[in-house]
């Protein structure tokens, strides 16, 4: 019986729960509106009865001046499209029940919505600021909150264009800096707080032990060579064993979303490069898909093939990097990483040839790609896909997979079961290493992935070793896709319509998601018909995958935490945005 429910499509929720759920009838919008008093009930139902077991994204939208809206995207781990729920609350009473008890993956996303939009989640176990620090004044993503360098609501600013002369923003600020303070603020009376909340939140284990031992707090980062940037965590240890662990974020919070809402749609494209700065082509892909959904355009054939080739090259490059750096974290300092980085350089050369930049490609446009492949690069890609990369992936495999130290340090470490992974909203290689065959390229196909013959590798132990193995295997599959794409790629235009600086985007909302190297990368874009997005939210895989870090680390040793963190493969640009 249950199988039938999973396979069949869900009847419309508003007919199933009349009085509790209504259809979102605004033009360009989809999904259902739930009053906040029924949210817990309805989400329990869709989780337990209808099989929407994965919470993909929670975000808020500030429909200034009327209301706040909290948007939930749910998916089934068996594949298929999204179920979108929305809760509307007044701006001055923005309180929503927390769904943390049903979906543990909501933990950090709800904290983010509280931090940036001031939406309170009732029943959240640890509702603190996450990206900004405790004590920061205001909720930055609210439309009536203005930053210190505020110049205008939307770009292009009239002072710069068409005839304006740019002036240094510092000169307009009374402190000659990017700061603003509440009125009559006295710095002498300020007492900094917030650090204690992080440490006090660490829970001691309650199991009765024979011997009373003292547990201590270890603080790691933000300046630490193995945190892959400026990540920070506080761990409570009992001897060598991790009792509790809390990550701390925000040391690279670059205000993507606030800047993105001032930018025009196209101006956001280069900013997406800087999210997961190792795989900029995938980021372009996700954002282009979301806006194309709104605009209703479809790129021409050749552009689709180019997109797929670039996205898969990015995946290989990113997995090379993560494998190399995992080995760095295990103590094989830089020798395996040098092998991996050498191949990455060859792929970067391709990116530089097609886009002009090694890392920040800014190559995709709404309705295609910005320019065709330059002469000769098709041969280079062919060479890479057929001659060079398959052998080099094997080489890395032979060098590392059977290595005694790699095996003993990775096997059985940081185990995450399939149920835990789904409940914690984990996506990407980590989810598949835990035995869930969920890959958006197959589960909810986008672009032209349905044309290619490739496998979704799955491993079942859910430990660090499997997370390493799956990356090696995924590189092989990506090579297969590139081999097919580069031989099938047709001639023709690479852009639909006329290139323009200002795109027309009809009012509405769209959620575009791709299988980025790190997991599900989603862009939630709301347009009100103007030249700028009203809301621009990034569902960053690295950030949400970190929700599982605590679960993975419990009961393991301090030294394993570094290996586990390396196996999650985070990129701080995306974690903090």
């Amino acid at each position: 019986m249950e199988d039938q429910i999973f396979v069949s499509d869900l009847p419309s929720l508003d007919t199933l729960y009349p009085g509790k759920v209504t259809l979102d009838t605004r033009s360009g919008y989809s999904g259902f509106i739930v009053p906040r008093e029924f949210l817990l009930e309805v989400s329990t139902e869709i989780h337990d009865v209808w099989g929407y077991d994965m919470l993909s994204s929670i975000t808020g939208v500030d429909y200034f001046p009327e209301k706040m809206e909290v948007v939930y995207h749910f998916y089934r781990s068996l594949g298929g499209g999204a179920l979108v729920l929305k809760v509307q609350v007044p701006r001055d009473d923005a309180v929503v029940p927390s769904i943390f008890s049903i979906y543990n993956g909501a933990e950090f996303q709800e904290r983010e919505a509280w931090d940036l939009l001031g939406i309170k989640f009732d029943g959240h176990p640890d509702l603190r600021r996450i990206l900004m620090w405790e004590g920061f004044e205001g909720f930055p993503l609210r439309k009536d909150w203005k930053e210190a360098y505020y110049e205008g609501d939307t770009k292009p600013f009239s002072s710069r264009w068409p005839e304006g002369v740019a002036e240094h923003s510092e000169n307009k600020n009374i402190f000659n800096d990017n700061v603003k303070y509440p009125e009559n603020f006295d710095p002498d009376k300020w007492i900094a707080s917030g650090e204690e909340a992080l440490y006090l939140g660490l829970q001691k284990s309650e199991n009765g032990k024979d011997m009373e031992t003292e547990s201590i707090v270890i603080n790691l980062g933000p300046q630490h060579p193995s945190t892959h940037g400026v990540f920070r965590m506080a761990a409570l240890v009992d001897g060598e064993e991790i009792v509790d662990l809390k990550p701390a974020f925000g040391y690279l919070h670059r205000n993507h979303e606030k800047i993105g809402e001032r930018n025009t749609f196209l101006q956001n494209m280069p900013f997406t490069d800087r999210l997961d700065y190792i795989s900029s082509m995938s980021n372009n892909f996700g954002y282009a898909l979301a806006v194309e959904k709104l605009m209703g355009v479809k790129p021409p054939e050749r552009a689709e093939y180019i997109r797929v080739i670039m996205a898969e090259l990015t995946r290989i490059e990113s997995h090379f990097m993560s494998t190399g750096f995992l080995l760095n974290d295990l103590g094989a300092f830089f020798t395996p990483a040098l092998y991996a980085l050498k191949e990455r350089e060859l792929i970067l050369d391709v990116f530089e040839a097609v886009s002009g930049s090694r890392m920040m490609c800014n190559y995709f446009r709404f309705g295609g790609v910005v320019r065709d492949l330059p002469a000769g690069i098709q041969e280079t890609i062919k060479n890479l896909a057929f001659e060079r990369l398959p052998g080099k992936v094997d080489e890395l495999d032979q060098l590392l997979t059977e290595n005694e130290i790699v095996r003993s340090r990775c096997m059985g470490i940081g185990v995450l079961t399939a149920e835990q992974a789904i409940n914690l909203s984990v996506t990407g290689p980590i989810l598949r290493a835990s035995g869930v065959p969920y890959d958006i390229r197959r589960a909810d196909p986008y672009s032209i992935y349905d044309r290619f013959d490739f496998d979704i590798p799955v491993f079942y132990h859910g430990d660090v070793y499997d997370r390493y193995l799956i990356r090696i295997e995924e590189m092989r599959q990506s090579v297969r896709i590139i081999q097919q794409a580069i031989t099938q790629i047709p001639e023709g235009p690479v852009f639909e319509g006329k290139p323009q600086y200002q795109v027309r985007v009809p009012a509405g909302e769209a959620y575009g998601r791709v299988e980025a190297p790190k997991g599900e990368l989603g862009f939630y874009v709301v347009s009100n018909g103007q030249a700028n997005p009203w809301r621009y939210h990034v569902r960053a895989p690295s950030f949400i995958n970190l929700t599982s870090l605590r679960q993975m680390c419990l009961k393991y040793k301090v030294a394993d935490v570094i290996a586990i963190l390396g196996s999650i493969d985070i990129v701080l640009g995306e974690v903090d945005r």
Partner: protein
Amino acid sequence: MQSEKINKPDINIPPELQSQVAITTLDRIYNWSRANSLWPMMFGLACCAIEMIITAASRYDFSRFGMEVMRPSPRQADVMIVSGTVTKKMVPQIVRLFNQMGEPKYVLAMGACASGGGPFKEGYNVVSGIDKFLPVDVYIPGCPPTPQALLHGLIILQKKIEKEKLADAEWYKKDFYEEIPVPILGPDLLDPRKYHLFKKEIDTTTEELVIESDAKGEEA
């Protein structure tokens, strides 16, 4: 080439000793050795850090210039490469790291963000360039700078070091103690060096407000 530069003594060395004896000034040999064994701090902030790693890796390999030893500890590092966006939340830690480095120390602002805020300058959590807090020796443009650009920046730094004089070196002077006050996270970033300014500004704004309200009152 470097050793030729050292050996310009204006003194005639007998030919049989020429390959064994070098006569030079203390400044020159001291700076030559310092400039060619710069140890960068292993410390990455954002996108630029990836290009910094690539510069250290085999293709560009900055160990050719004596910089292969990247040290995670500030105590052992000579040059801090600020590689990426400096955020308000991170800047107290960066200033603290800089304070912990031993003299002589140098700062390289790598990329647009570290130099002046870059594409993220308008952001509410972004510091408009690390030079608001630390003395920067070399700025490297780019977003991110290519490894070649970083190498070029490091070579410029070496040239700068070679021009320094021991007699003028501040860090050998008596009572030299220069610690940059660590900024505080308040309702917004608080720079202790600006407290006086802060007070003055607040006072003038309140005075203006008072005057304005008085004027309004009179009008009414």
